[in-house]
C-alpha cells in the first residue's frame, strides 16, 4: 500500500467485532469485554494499594530517614518519566480514535509510538537503576556496601522503592509486549473488522499503568522532599 493510498479512503478499513457463539449481540460482547477489563483494573488498583499503604506507614513511622532517602531518588528522571507516560497515554488514545474510524495504518503507527514511549520509560528507568547502583543504593546486594545511612528504616524504604517501581515496570513491560504483538496483528488485514475492541480494551490497561505511575511518583519521590 503506498503512502498516498493510506491517507485516501482506500486505507480505511471496516470496523467491527467477530461475535463469539455464547453472546447474543455484538453490543453484549463489547460491553462484557470492556467491563471485564474494568474489573481487572480494580483488582490491580487494590494490589498496588497494599504497597502504597505500606510505603505511607513506613513514612509515618520513620519520617526523618524516609525523607533522607527520598532526596537520593532521581527526581528529574522520575519527572521526565511521568511526562513520557502521559504523552504515551495521548498517543494510545490517538490509536483508539483512529481505529474507530478504521484508519489502519494510522492506528498501527500510533500504537508503535505508544510502545516506543513505553520503552523510553523503561530505558530511563534502567538508567536510573544504574545510577542507584553506582551510588551504592542497593541494600539487597549483599556483597556491596550500602552508602546511605545505616539506619534500618532507610534500607526499608529503599527496598520498597525497588519493589514498587519493579512491580510497575513489570506491568509496563507486559503492556509494551502486548502492544507490540497487537500492533503486528493490527497491521494485517481484517484485524479492525474482527477485533477493533481489543485495542480499546488494551487502551484502558495502558491508561491504568500510567495512572499507577502518577501515584507512585508522588508517594516515593515527591512527598516531604
Amino acid at each position: 500500500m503506498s503512502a498516498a493510498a493510506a491517507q485516501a479512503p482506500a486505507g480505511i478499513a471496516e470496523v467491527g467485532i467477530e461475535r463469539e457463539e455464547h453472546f447474543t449481540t455484538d453490543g453484549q460482547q463489547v460491553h462484557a469485554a470492556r467491563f471485564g477489563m474494568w474489573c481487572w483494573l480494580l483488582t490491580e488498583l487494590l494490589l498496588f494499594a497494599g504497597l502504597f499503604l505500606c510505603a505511607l506507614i513506613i513514612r509515618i513511622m520513620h519520617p526523618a530517614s524516609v525523607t533522607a532517602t527520598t532526596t537520593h531518588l532521581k527526581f528529574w528522571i522520575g519527572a521526565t518519566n511521568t511526562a513520557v507516560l502521559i504523552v504515551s497515554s495521548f498517543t494510545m488514545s490517538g490509536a483508539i480514535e483512529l481505529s474507530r474510524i478504521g484508519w489502519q495504518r494510522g492506528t498501527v503507527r500510533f500504537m508503535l509510538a505508544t510502545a516506543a514511549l513505553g520503552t523510553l520509560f523503561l530505558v530511563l528507568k534502567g538508567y536510573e537503576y544504574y545510577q542507584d547502583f553506582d551510588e551504592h543504593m542497593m541494600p539487597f546486594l549483599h556483597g556491596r556496601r550500602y552508602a546511605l545511612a545505616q539506619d534500618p528504616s532507610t534500607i526499608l524504604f529503599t527496598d520498597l522503592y525497588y519493589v514498587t517501581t519493579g512491580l510497575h515496570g513489570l506491568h509496563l513491560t507486559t503492556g509494551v509486549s502486548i502492544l507490540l504483538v497487537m500492533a503486528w496483528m493490527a497491521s494485517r488485514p481484517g484485524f479492525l473488522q474482527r477485533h477493533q475492541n481489543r485495542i480499546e480494551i488494551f487502551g484502558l490497561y495502558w491508561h491504568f499503568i500510567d495512572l499507577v505511575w502518577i501515584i507512585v511518583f508522588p508517594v516515593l519521590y515527591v512527598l516531604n522532599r
Partner: protein
Amino acid sequence: MTPPPDSLIGTIETALREPHPGRITIDREPDYLHDEHTLWSWLTTTDHKRIGILYLLSITAFFIVGAFAAGLIRLSLVVPNGQIFSNDTYNKLFTIHGVVMIWFFLIPSIPATFGNFIMPIMIGAKDVAFPRLNRTSWYIFVSASLFTLFTVVAGGVDTGWTFYAPFSTTFSNTWVVPALIGVIVVGFSSILTGLNFIVTIHTMRAPGMTWFRMPIFVWTMYAVSLIFLLATPVITMALILLVMERVFHIGVFDPALGGDPVLFEHLFWFYSHPAVYIMVLPGMGVISEIVPVFSQKRLFGYRFVAYASIGLASLTFFVWGHHMFVNGESETSALVFSVLSFAVAVPSAVKVYNWTATIYKGTLRLDTPMLYAMGYIGLFVVGGLTGLFLATLAIDEHVHDTYFVVAHFHYIMVGGTALAFLGGLHYWWPKFTGRLYPEAWGRLSAFLIFIGFNATFAPQFVLGYLGMPRRYHNYPPEFQLLNILSSSGSLVLALGYVFPMVYLGWSLRYGAKAPPNPWNAKGLEWTTASPPPKHNFETPPTVDFPPYDYRRRETRV
C-alpha cells in the same frame, strides 16, 4: 468353552453402536456429558458445566487430603502429652489441614463448582462471559494447589494457614516461600473466577431476567465475586512482601529492620476476614435455594435476603480488626472493630429469620438437601452467636487463641459451608449427572454428619473456655476426656463423609434416571433437561415470572 448366547452378543453389539440406548438422539442436542467423550475434550473444554465438574473433582480430592490431616490431628490429641507425633510433625499437620481446607477447599468450594455450573443456567445464559478465562482459572487453581500441596506435604510448613510474621519471616525453618508462592498464584484463580462471575451477571442475563428476578444464589455469587475482586489482591501483596522479606530481608514486617509485624496482620485479615464470607455467603445462597423448594413456598422477604448478601459483602471489609484485639491494637480501634463486628450479625440474622419464616407453614418435605439445610441453619446460628461472644472485648481477652475460637469457626465453616456444600450437591446432583441418588442413604449420612459434627466440635467450646490453647498437642490431663469425645465424634463425622462419596459414585451408574425437575423447583435450571444440553437450553429462555414462584398455599387448595 461354550460360546456366549446370541442375545448377549446382540446386546454388546447394540451397546457398541449406540452407547446410550433409549436416549432420543434425533431431534435433541446431546447433553454436555455425552457431547464428546475423550479426556482431552474435558481438559480443553470451555463449557462452564464441565469446568464446574472439573472443580468439583479437584476440590473433593483436596478435601480428602485435608480431612486426612484433620484425622491425624485428632488422633494426636487423644493423649495429653503429645507422644504420637513429634512437635514438628504436629505443627506441619495443622498447617497442611488449614492451608488445604481453607485455600483449596472452602474458598473455591461452592463458587467454583455450583457457581460455575448452575449460576449461568440460573440467569438463562449460554455460558459465562469469558469461557476461556474460566478454563485458565481452573488450570491455575490445579497447578498452584498441587504445587503447594507438594510443598506442605513433602517439605512441610509449620506456620499455620495464617503465616504470621515474624515467625514466618524470621524463625521458621520450613518451606515457607514455595508455599506462599503457591497460595499467591491460587489467588489469581479466585480473582479470575470472581471477575468472570461479575461480568456474567451484569451482561449475560436472559431477556426479562431483571436483577430482582435473580435467585438468591446468583446474588450471593455476585457478593462473593466482589470480595474476590477487592480483597484477594491485598493478600497477594502482603504475601509477596512476605516472600521478599524471607528472600531479601527487606523488613516491612520486621521491627529490627524498621518494619511492623502487626502491619502484616492487618493486611492479612483485611483479606481473610472477608474471606470467611467468601466461604459462608455461597452457603447462604445454596440454603436460600433449598429451603423454598422443600417448603414449596416463596422465599420470605426475598429483597431483604438479596440486600443482606450485598450488605454482608460490604460490612465484612470493616471488621478485620476483631482478630487482633489482643495483638497490639489500640483500645479505641478495638472498640470500633468490636461494634462493627456486632453490626455484621444483623444481616446474618436477617437471613436466618427469613429462612425460618419460609419454612413456617410450608409444605415440608424432609429430603436429604432439606436435612442439610436445616442442619446448616442451626449450626450457623451457633457459630454466629459465638462469633458475637468473640467480638466482645472482655470475653475475647479470655478465649482468644483457644479452642473456643476453633469451635466457633468450625461451626461456621464445617457446620455451615460444608453442610451447604453437601446439601447443594444432593440438590443439584440430578442436574449434574442425570441420576437420582438413593434417598435413604442420603438421609442417613446427613444425620451422621450432624451428630458427628456436634460431637466433634461442641466439646471444643468447653475446652476453649476452660483454657486449652489452639495449636498445641500437649495439654493438661484433665482435658483428656473432652478431647477423646471430640476425637471419637470425628470418626462419626468421617463416616458421614465417606457415605456420600460411595453412594453418589454408585448412583452415576445405577441410580434411577432423573427427570428434568425432580423436586418441583422453580429456578430456570430446572426447566432444561437433566443433564443440560451443551448450550444449556434447547431454546433460549425468556423470563416473565418472579423468583421462587411457588403458588401460595391458599390458592393451591
